[in-house]
């Protein structure tokens, strides 16, 4: 696949990977609405980019790398917004926080306590259903490194949840 993605290819990519991307991004960001936005951005990029998938890596890895980059961009932009929100909601924040903590799912909260590297591996493996080989290729790390992160992340999660 090179050049702009055809409608048919887009349909196939979307049907095969949209749910996996959502699972990964929801675990990674802890925010379902944000995850949906990033999935949409990712596929919009797939439709509008001229370069397309160059064949250097699997299309699945290509899609997830777009999503990862988009997520990092948004994280940078949202940093400023979050800081502004924190300043302006300081009075109501304390009250809201109690409700928010009570409502939050334990697993999701625990995931957010992992290091970013561990969370990414766990989210890609169990949210996106990527194989360890695919994760290693995507994150450009050795597979043994990915295995170590996954195991450490899972152990930490287990301790937190139990």
């Amino acid at each position, binding site marked *: 696949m090179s050049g702009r993605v055809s409608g048919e290819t887009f349909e196939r990519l979307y049907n095969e990977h949209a749910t996996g991307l959502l*699972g990964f991004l929801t675990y990674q960001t802890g925010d*379902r*609405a944000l995850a949906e*936005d990033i999935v*949409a951005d990712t*596929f919009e990029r797939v439709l509008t980019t001229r370069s397309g998938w160059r064949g250097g890596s699997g299309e699945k890895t290509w899609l997830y790398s777009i999503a990862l980059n988009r997520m990092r961009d948004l994280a940078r932009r949202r940093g400023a917004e979050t800081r502004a929100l924190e300043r302006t909601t300081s009075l109501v924040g304390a009250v809201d926080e109690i409700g928010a903590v009570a409502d939050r799912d334990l697993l999701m909260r625990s995931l957010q306590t992992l290091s970013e590297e561990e969370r990414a591996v766990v989210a890609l493996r169990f949210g996106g259903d990527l194989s*360890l080989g695919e994760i290693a290729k995507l994150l450009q790390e050795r597979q043994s490194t990915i295995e170590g992160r996954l195991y450490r992340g899972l152990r930490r999660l287990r301790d937190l949840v139990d």
Partner: protein
Amino acid sequence: MARFDDQLPDDVRDIAERLSASRATFTPLELDELRQRVQQRAQRAPGRRGLAGRMHARWVAVLLAAGLLLTSGAGVVIACESVGGGGSQTFGTTSFHHARDASWCQYHGPYTRVIHIDTRHGVITVTIVWDCRHMHVHFDYGFPFNWRFGDGDWNHGSDGDAPDGTSYVTVSADGSTYTVPCGDGWSGAGWTGSSGSSGSSDSSGSSDSSGSSDSSGSSDSSGGGSNQGGSNSGSTSPNVSASGNSATNPTPAASSSAPSIAEQYQNALAACRKLTSGQKRKACIANATSLYRQQELAAAIARCHTLDGKHTRKACIAAAHRKY
């Protein structure tokens, strides 16, 4: 390697199964809705460009931003240089850092505005710090001067926090008075209500596709003059005027002349449509649209922040992001 893919160590297998079982999924309806959203957005997107294209888009964006500033009627630099009844007093150098409306501030963070006022003896430096909630003003001048917020008491100190509802500050030095209207964002708790629909007076904007993030320089089509009315009627015009004799000065029609975001967008589109080159016209319209959406997004987020409940606000902001 397959050991970890297919058979995890026993001690973490349970948590892995829980993670797999709890992963987020789309319903068929959600999947379909998102697909339609992606396709609609992709159709609207101007498309990715190469380096030459990006450079071209950046140039067009700069021109467009300048055009918006000229057509907005809510300028800063020329407005600041407008001469009041004093005749000879003009504001010399004026530099604005992120001098946006409150909604922009709310979205991107606080801004600092520095205004230099030339007097007969020197320069009064007025520093306005807006943290999206409070407005702090600091004056720096080597000679005696007084100042006050709105029609309040005169102060002799070098700084103060503006009370809610304040729409302008007046500085008196060397026998002249200088009025600095502050537009929206000044009125403390009131800023959220007026920022969205009244539009940003400082029409400088940024565009993702162009990379242009801040433009300065503008004209004030409404003319200068002192703002002696002091009404805070949702004006978003950060006009700055010097006044020696307020009775002879016209009151600027800031609130009526400052176009809304939609009006600015329409003006920009009209300007774009006059371009003869089809490619330039398309790029110009795309950039105008991008600017418009960003401004609307900022305004929508500002409105979200007025809602009660953190979850409600977050949902509102997420919806705003989706819409714009």
